[in-house]
């Protein structure tokens, strides 16, 4: 464009030219931004994979995953204790958290009305936004003494209070509001005709919820639970504060242990000195990414399958 402004026509042309230029330039930028998510994911996986190659060239995958000896100073890298600890924590958390999350979601979506409903759901929003390090701190003040002084002795265990059970209890508190808000969303998206027709044929309110609504909202609730699963699985700060940090196969729910993320946090100090340790801990990061990816993918497939099966 010449940019001269002596006639109206050329002004119009140059202004249009400027607008089109903005359009073109902005679309390059936006396109770049659009591909950023994919590029970021690929870059993360490749970087982690590249850095964990030293470990994998030294030991086979099976060897590393099935060995229970974790002793970086002696070049022994067995992830089994951390893997078992992670499964233990995740399972216990979900057993404690899921029923309460679903029942509370049912309360908010089906029972609560008016101001109570607004109040309770904004409380849950707030709970979901509290940083996990604060849950860890409050747990150190409240839950650890409770478990150590009352619960563990009552069940005949000499635990100090930090350990797998404590972590699971606190993680259940951390993850519940997250699952509740997703479950409430899918319950509230259901059309009222479902409720009306079920009540109309003589079902009680609970039968309506159990037989009709929980199935219709089933795909959404399932993916809420699976996403919660992923959250617990990758939780770092709360386990690192409360699990006790001993890399051993846990013998009881009250024993101390290690999860995959806490392995990274607790052994970080040795990371720079022994090169293979660095590679091993980065491999843990890679495992976390891959498993979360599998979780997400299976959640998507399951959701699709359930939607077909329980469609209304």
């Amino acid at each position, binding site marked *: 464009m010449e940019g001269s402004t002596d006639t109206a026509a050329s002004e119009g042309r140059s202004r249009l030219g400027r607008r089109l230029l903005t*359009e073109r330039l902005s679309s390059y930028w936006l396109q770049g931004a659009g591909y950023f998510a994919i590029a970021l994911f690929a870059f993360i996986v490749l970087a982690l994979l590249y850095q964990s190659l030293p470990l994998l060239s030294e030991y086979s995958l099976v060897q590393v995953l099935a060995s229970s000896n974790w002793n970086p100073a002696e070049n022994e890298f067995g992830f089994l204790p951390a893997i078992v600890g992670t499964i233990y924590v995740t399972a216990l958390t979900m057993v404690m958290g899921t029923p309460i999350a679903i029942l509370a979601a049912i309360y908010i979506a089906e029972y609560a009305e008016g101001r109570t409903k607004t109040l309770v759901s904004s409380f849950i929003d707030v709970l979901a*936004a509290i940083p996990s390090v604060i849950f860890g701190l409050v747990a150190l003040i409240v839950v650890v003494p409770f478990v150590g002084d009352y619960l563990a002795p009552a069940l005949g265990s000499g635990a100090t209070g930090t350990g797998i059970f404590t972590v699971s209890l606190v993680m259940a508190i951390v993850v519940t509001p997250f699952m509740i808000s997703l479950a409430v969303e899918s319950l509230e998206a259901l059309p009222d005709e479902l409720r009306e027709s079920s009540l109309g044929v003589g079902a009680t309110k609970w039968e309506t919820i159990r037989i009709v609504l929980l199935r219709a909202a089933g795909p959404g609730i399932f993916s809420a639970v699976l996403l919660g699963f992923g959250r617990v699985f*990758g939780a770092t700060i709360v386990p690192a504060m409360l699990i006790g940090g001993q890399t051993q196969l846990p013998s009881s729910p009250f024993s101390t242990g290690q999860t995959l993320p806490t392995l990274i946090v607790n052994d970080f100090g040795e990371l720079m000195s022994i090169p293979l340790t660095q590679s091993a801990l980065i491999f843990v990061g890679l495992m976390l990414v891959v498993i979360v990816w599998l979780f997400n993918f299976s959640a998507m497939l399951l959701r699709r399958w359930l939607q077909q099966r329980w469609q209304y």
Partner: protein
Amino acid sequence: MDRYAKQRLFGLLARGSAALVVAVMVLVVSVTIFRGGRVLLTDPAIAVTPPGSRYMLEGDGGFLHAVLGSLFIVVPATIASATLAVSTAIYLQSDYSSERFSDVVNMFLNVLWGTPPIVYGVFILTVIIAVGAQTSLFFGIIAIGIFQYPIMTRYTDEALRSAPDTVREATYGLGGTRFETALMTLRAAMPGIIAGIIMGFARGIGDAATVLFTAGRSTRMPAGLFEPSTTLPVLIFDQAMSFNAEVRSHAYAASFVLIVAVLGLIIVSKLLAGRYARFAPGGRNS
């Protein structure tokens, strides 16, 4: 048990669960506020005093370095990440990309959203090792920015999708380009976008795992972009398990500051969303 008794029982269970969740929330917030408030009331200066030389051992001085570190890391990270997130979300709309492409990107965004923060920390750490740098404020910003990106993108994308189509049609009808149309849609979706950005900010300021290995865990005042620094959550994490009660009390005070900041942000986001609702055609809540 007949079906009416069952209905009453499960009604009670549902109420009980909700009451339990609310009670836990009240407990967590009030323990934090009381413990932290007590420390801050007896010695309010620790929030604005730089740390002393033996801070982690004896708790001399205060945690101003962590407050400033949090601000210096999370504010730039939020600005950078929000710019990128809004751009991505615009590109995902039907004006720019096909349904198929945006489905694929959304799948990746879901995976990134679900990725544990510690993985971002480890990832940035591998980058630091690869370029031979040291942990610093700069890498903390990048780590938090990456962590916030999927969160903000999902919120923005949802807000743009729920913006009324009439805005888009009217702008195209007046001869607007795609970019001009996108700006108008952005304006109509502003309440949702602001809420998303503030959510991202709140998540970023509360996250410890991403900055644990990237920002440097320093116990001195942040000195520059490429110097080590720390944030409030990392400080709380390090001090909470200290054997020195004085040091632990600083963790309580810091968590008070953090929880007030997060709760304040939520309130601000609600207020701002209401304020920006006037740009949204069709009423306050659309």
